[in-house]
């Protein structure tokens, strides 16, 4: 399969609308208006936020704390809403 940029006619296209440019290249974090911030003092490392993130934008570090990947986090706020200890605050971007 050719790279998307190299395509010049319909003959270069695969039959189905697929591409080998991984979706990791599509950094959708710029859509974010509110940014989740983790307060490690309140966090109990329950990983509920990790489980609830619809964009797989939360990783867990070696100590068990959540790390938010701001390249992909769209700021939906589900993690903050689900956190049982209100350890995640949603801060307005650009402040």
């Amino acid at each position: 399969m050719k790279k998307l940029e190299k395509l010049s006619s319909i003959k270069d296209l695969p039959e189905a609308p697929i591409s080998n440019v991984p979706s990791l290249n599509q950094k959708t974090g710029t859509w974010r208006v509110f940014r989740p911030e983790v307060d490690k003092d309140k966090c109990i490392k329950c990983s509920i936020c990790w489980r609830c993130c619809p964009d797989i934008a939360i990783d867990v570090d070696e100590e068990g704390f959540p790390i938010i990947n701001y390249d992909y986090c769209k700021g939906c706020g589900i993690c903050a809403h689900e956190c049982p200890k209100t350890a995640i605050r949603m801060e307005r971007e650009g402040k």
Partner: protein
Amino acid sequence: MVKKIMTGDIAAAWGARLSRAEVIAAYPITPQTIIVEKLAQFVSDGELKAEYLHVESEHSAMAACIAASQTGARTFTATSSQGLVLMHELLHWASGARTPVVMANVNRALAPPWNVWVEHTDMMSQRDTGWIQFYAESNQEVLDTIIMSYKLCEDKEIQLPAMIGLDAFYLSHTSEIVDIPDQDSVDKFLPQYDPMYPLDIENPLSIGSLSMPHQWYSEFRYKIQEAMERVIPKLNQIEEEFYKEFGRKYTGPLELYNTDDAEVVLIVSGAAAGTVKETVDIFRKKGIKVGLIRLRMFRPFPSEELNKALSKALFVGVIDRSFSFGHEGAIFSELKASLYGVKHSPPIKNFILGIGGRDITTDTISRVYNNCFNCLKNNKIDNPVEWIDIRV
């Protein structure tokens, strides 16, 4: 080969079983439920090695089938009426992503008022979703068409989904003798699905990601139409292979019944074709030249085949067991468009009947034929779209 007496629902389940469907996502709805119940039984009895997914709606059933198909699994689901129209969004996705999902749809009327009996509006209203559409006349045809559909849909030159319609109750719950082909022959006819672009963790792909107006969206849609144009020749070829393997002959998108010298030809789809054939025989015994074209396939629409089959007819009646509000029956619209610009095209009239499962008898069809002969004699069509048996 074993002959058994079974309903259309059971025949559909056998079609999926013999095709070795690997993922079945199901949500129950009358009169389809028996199909997925039977498949659940096959899976729990260990007779069919498949992942059986209980989902929360038909929308989810189709989503699951699409995703499973993209991993390279052969997938099956079944639905009816409200369930099919709830799937609508995902039907577009299935064809757009070029997933060869095969689905049985028990043709049932849409509410309100509630009605679980046969009508074709459910499938007709999915006309533009990019699915291949079949309408069966018998339980045997349901089983055979499911097997053939996998071969057709999974072909590298097609890569499109297909739905097989079977009339509520007249097929779904009516027992007929069905020849069950043996598994070895089906395996020979239908090898394992070899996907073109399977999802694979080692070789990641993006499927259906954004395509801007200046990029390739138009071209991908154009490709769907190109594939659609290959469907009928491919189907003819597959039916020929099927005949060699199983000895049952199917005749492409149309079945012609006494059309060669017929003055009046009716067009019908679904199980009512049996009643029309019976009526043709009654008329023929009296020396009246009538014929029938059974439309087996509605998408792609077999325009050329119909034009050819109608080239000698003096009058054509189209029976639609569905209706497009604000206009006319769907088959009628499509056929008229196909005949536009064709030299010596016959006059054509639409008959709306059998709505919400209202019975279609030989008496009904006799009146339709006589209606056509009257129009022909008077050289005039007073009412081009006539609802039959409406108590006005």
